[in-house]
């Protein structure tokens, strides 16, 4: 009773106190910049592009002047003659041409560096990593000069051994290989670094035990390195799939906005960019962006499925 009386007469707690703010609100205030930026630059564009995918909108008409068209944009993209399919086919083809060799080269290369070039690992990695951090414009200009039909180094070398000039960036059948070579060159180092870090995570004990058991280098690679590298391979493959499906800079700068001769290097991302900013058809471009997202999602799932089969359940 006495207690209750005292409670009733005790002064009310202040509404705002620094200590209370510190405890309860400060964490939210300090983390809020991320959420605010994410809302503005992450979530809003995502939602807006989903909204636009169902509308016909020319940006020059200003905000608000859009017309609801339902699934028309998606139907248009998925129509049999549309360039969406052509561009997607180019993207996947260039992606395969550059992606598969990337891993076929990067993995053994990382193994060799890890096993035999320990002392030089730092400098070798740096050299391999340089293309990845070099500006794409600079790279494509240099390759443009290498590929040049009359003035290029490649055709000069071919000429020296008596072969005719190859139109590297002009014949539609050759263009995907020329672009894929640049993409391969640019990202192979990145994959080597990924695999190297994966290799370093494998305990030396395993290799020592194998050596004691008389395993050869090849056996060590096949039975120890490869299985233990699976998580890193899964990660590297996923990055390659996502990156190659969104390929834009290299073909755009080397072959121009239209994807060069016959549009042979017109990738999905370039087609979306052209539709949005040259043709000013934002709705159609947004619909294609979502379809591209779906394609990347499906391919990533296939990759996931392949890796989680036979013994890789822990991935």
């Amino acid at each position, binding site marked *: 009773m006495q207690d209750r009386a005292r409670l009733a007469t005790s002064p009310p707690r202040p509404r705002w106190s620094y200590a209370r703010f510190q405890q309860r609100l400060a964490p939210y205030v300090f983390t809020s910049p991320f959420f605010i930026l994410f809302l503005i630059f992450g979530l809003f564009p995502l939602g807006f592009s989903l909204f636009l995918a169902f509308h*016909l909108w*020319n*940006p*020059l*008409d*200003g*905000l608000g*002047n859009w017309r609801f068209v339902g699934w*028309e944009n998606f139907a*248009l993209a998925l*129509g049999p*003659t*549309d*360039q969406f399919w052509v561009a997607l086919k180019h993207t996947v083809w260039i992606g395969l041409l550059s992606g598969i060799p990337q891993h076929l080269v990067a993995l053994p290369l990382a193994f060799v560096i890890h096993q035999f070039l320990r002392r030089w690992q730092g400098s070798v990695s740096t050299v391999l990593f340089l293309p990845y951090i070099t500006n794409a414009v600079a790279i494509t200009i240099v390759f*443009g*000069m290498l590929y*040049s*039909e*009359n*003035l290029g180094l490649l055709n000069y070398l071919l000429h020296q051994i008596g072969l005719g000039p190859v*139109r590297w960036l*002009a*014949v*539609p059948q050759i263009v995907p290989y020329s672009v894929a070579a640049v993409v391969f060159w640019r990202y192979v180092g990145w994959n080597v670094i990924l695999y190297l870090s994966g290799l370093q995570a494998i305990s030396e004990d395993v290799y020592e035990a194998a050596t004691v058991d008389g395993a050869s280098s090849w056996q060590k690679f096949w039975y120890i390195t490869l299985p233990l590298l699976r998580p890193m391979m899964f990660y590297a493959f996923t990055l390659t799939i996502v990156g190659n499906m969104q390929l834009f800079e290299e073909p755009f700068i080397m072959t*121009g906005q*239209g994807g060069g*001769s*016959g*549009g042979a290097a017109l990738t999905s991302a370039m087609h979306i960019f*052209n539709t949005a*900013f*040259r*043709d*000013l*058809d934002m709705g*159609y471009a947004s619909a294609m962006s979502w379809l591209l997202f779906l394609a990347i999602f499906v391919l990533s799932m296939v990759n996931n499925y392949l890796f989680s089969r036979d013994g890789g359940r822990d991935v």
Partner: protein
Amino acid sequence: MKKSLTLVLASALLLGSAQAQNVTLTVAAFPSLDSAIKAILPAWNKLHPNVTIKLQAQEYADHHNAMTTALATGQGLPDVMAIEIGFVSKFAEGQGLENLDNAPYNAGQYKKLFTPFTIGQATSSDKRFIAMPTDIGPGTFFYRKDVLDKAGVNPLTLQTSWESFIEGGKKIKAKTGAYLINTAASINNVIIRTNLKPGEGIYFDSKNNLLVGPDNARFVRAFTLSKQVRDAGLDAKIGEWSNEWYDAFKKGTVATQFSGAWLQGALQNWMAPDTKGLWRVQNLPEKGFASWGGSFYAIPSKAVNKQWAWEFIKFMTLEQSSQITAFKDNGAFPALLAAQKDKAFSEAVPFLGGQQARVLWRDAAAKTQPIDVNKYDSVAEQIVQTELTNVLEQGKDIKQALSDARAQIARRAR
């Protein structure tokens, strides 16, 4: 008396402060129009010392992307917006620019002062006039006189018909080894742009009917002649704005080039300055006249200083001295008819071996017909170019290519 004097003094002070009020006018432009503006600025500053021009120049594509975004959101718009020919029809179809026919601009009275076809280019399909033309690019036919002389080919025979153009090309190739043209695709580009009937655009007519197709004689001829040139091995298969292109100009390995008159300035200044005196120009084959470039100024509806923006645009486009300054600065061919009568136009062009080329270009510009533009022109252009490459590089049947192009464009033009 004293009271009224104070009143007079006070009002004079007010007026003075109003006149001295400084205005900053933002002008967004792209190269090399920005260089022309800079050259004209001293004259403007002398006339309007209180109006400061803030020039925002970006690369061609960046500028037009930025303007597209600004018009879409209504944010960050300049007072004066420069627009290049490649974008003017799209910008005209949008609703974000002032209709200059309306008051207070009343631009209708000035239209007859400009080269006629440019007015059509800046007019939307619902007849709004959204931009004032400042420079134009008359289409012309460059050729290497030395190469043609060596081959014994009279340049006029190349001009008579497309068939004689190809025949001449064969002779040039046989005698000198030089190619007739950089790429067979440029023949297509000239043919589909010239000799259009009234009410016809390149890809669509004025009623939005699609013209591309296997039954359209213009496209069939353009594709057929391009293929003939490719099959005869007369084109060097090199794209424009490539190192090979510049190299061909320097070495004379390509005998002719269709282009806007502005190519002369580019050749002289940086592409092939050492070939001075070797080039000549004439009109396009089969009396084809075409517009090959041009720039415009527009006022966004949400601009802050519309009144001064209009004064500035008038100064850039209607003042003969400004137009001549731009012409002398970077060869921007005046859209203003009066400026084309300047004595600089009858002067010989040393780079073209002393030819009076500007008179020829002036006549070509006067004969160029307005072309109806369509907002799906860029879609059609890309699809037609791709199908043409299929014909040239992969031997696709011409009728099939054109009907495929027709189907693809029809789907996109909604």
